[in-house]
């Protein structure tokens, strides 16, 4: 059967997501948020989710809808604070002890996800040594410098925003949209990409930024 990863809707793309899933969601700095898929996940209503997302809430992202709907049990992120004076839905639930938080340095966050998709169980990094974010973690000295043992992150599902896709699942990204998309797609059992447009022709090999090998489903989401 010819390979064809196109699906008709975000709802169809997420039809088999279960309660308790670990969901990796791309987006940083205002670019690359998979907001159409986030809303579809909200509609799907799977509960007890663990979100792995750079910002727990961001003014251009819709993760707060999942949080407000009470679907999220834990968030792994590098940023859990809003710039608003008002506390976010995340902050309210976190202060009330109703949602767990794991705060991770952003580069360690990216590398833990990369490791998850690259068959590496754990790695040593100098980042975080001597800080409270390394509390309880194994420390080992290499070349006279202290390193912290960090474990890979894998997901059940990745929600990635990209610019174009072809039916093989190959992706291109616009500008800073790429951020966590590639590593998150690699680290998840099911990688779903929402794109501005799905192309009829294959993307030329030297334009592909994420090979379709790492992508399971693509859905056209428009602008």
């Amino acid at each position, binding site marked *: 059967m010819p390979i064809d990863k196109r699906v008709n809707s975000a709802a169809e793309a997420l039809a088999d997501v279960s309660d308790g899933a670990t969901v990796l969601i791309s987006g940083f700095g205002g670019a690359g948020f998979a907001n159409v898929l986030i809303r579809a996940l909200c509609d799907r209503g799977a509960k007890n989710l663990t979100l792995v997302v750079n910002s727990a809430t961001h003014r251009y992202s819709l993760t707060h809808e999942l949080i407000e709907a009470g679907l999220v049990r834990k968030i792994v992120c590098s940023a859990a604070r809003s710039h608003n004076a008002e506390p976010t839905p995340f902050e309210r639930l976190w202060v009330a002890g109703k949602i767990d938080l794991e705060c991770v340095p952003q*580069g360690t966050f*990216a590398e833990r996800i990369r490791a998850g998709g690259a068959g590496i169980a754990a790695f040593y990094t100098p980042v975080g040594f001597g800080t409270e974010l390394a509390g309880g973690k194994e420390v080992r000295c290499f070349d006279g410098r202290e390193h912290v043992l960090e474990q890979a992150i894998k997901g059940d599902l990745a929600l990635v925003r990209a610019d174009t896709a072809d039916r093989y699942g190959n992706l291109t990204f616009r500008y*800073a949209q*790429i951020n966590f998309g590639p*590593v998150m797609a690699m680290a998840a059992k099911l990688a779903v990409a929402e794109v501005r447009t799905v192309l009829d022709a294959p993307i030329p090999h030297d334009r592909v930024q994420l090979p379709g090998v790492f992508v399971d489903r693509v859905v056209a989401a428009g602008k």
Partner: protein
Amino acid sequence: MTVQPLNRLQAAWRAARDIADGMVVNLGLGMPLHVADYLGPEVDVFIQSENGVIGVGPLAPTDRIDTDLVDAGSRRITLRPGASIVDSSWSFAMIRGGHVDVTILGAFEVAANGDLANWDMRLPNKGPLVGGAMDLAVGARAVWVIMEHMTRKGTPRLVETCTLPLTAVRCVKRVYTDLAVIEVTHDGMVVREMLDDMTEAELRARTGATLVFAPDCRPLVAPPIAQPE
């Protein structure tokens, strides 16, 4: 004591004087971002942003905004000639791997041994935000800090030991404040420049760590720059 401290833009101007031609530079949010505005035309640098942009240009004019072209602070930017954009794992490999020459960060506290506290003020009911601060502080080849010499409450930010949660240990090499330029060395904090109308005793009184004055300590001067409200 009537001392006229530098304003934030003047401190950024002063730090920009030390950016050398050809450097790869990462600028933290807040005061450090202004350093880019005061680089001379003879200095050709690549500004790296943690979100993977290598070669951040000026902010985009309102008629040329592209919502996908942003820096780590969600600012709508342009690219400089020769720019490229990579994904987050590659961006942090660049940072952690020592390929960024200098990062200029804001800070709450810097200790005499170079310990940096700049990520968590322990605000009640606010979630933590570490972002790329720890990666930059550990990975960049040089870590410089721009900050006000004292807190709004009048307590020193240069201290013997940080009281706030650490970002990284023994990482800060140089601090630009509104009063002085200070190098953090194995022998402690060395004052390289200080406001002309200030005495050593006055600077010591505003500092929580032991200061050594360099034999060639110069006056800290900057041109007048209006600080927008």
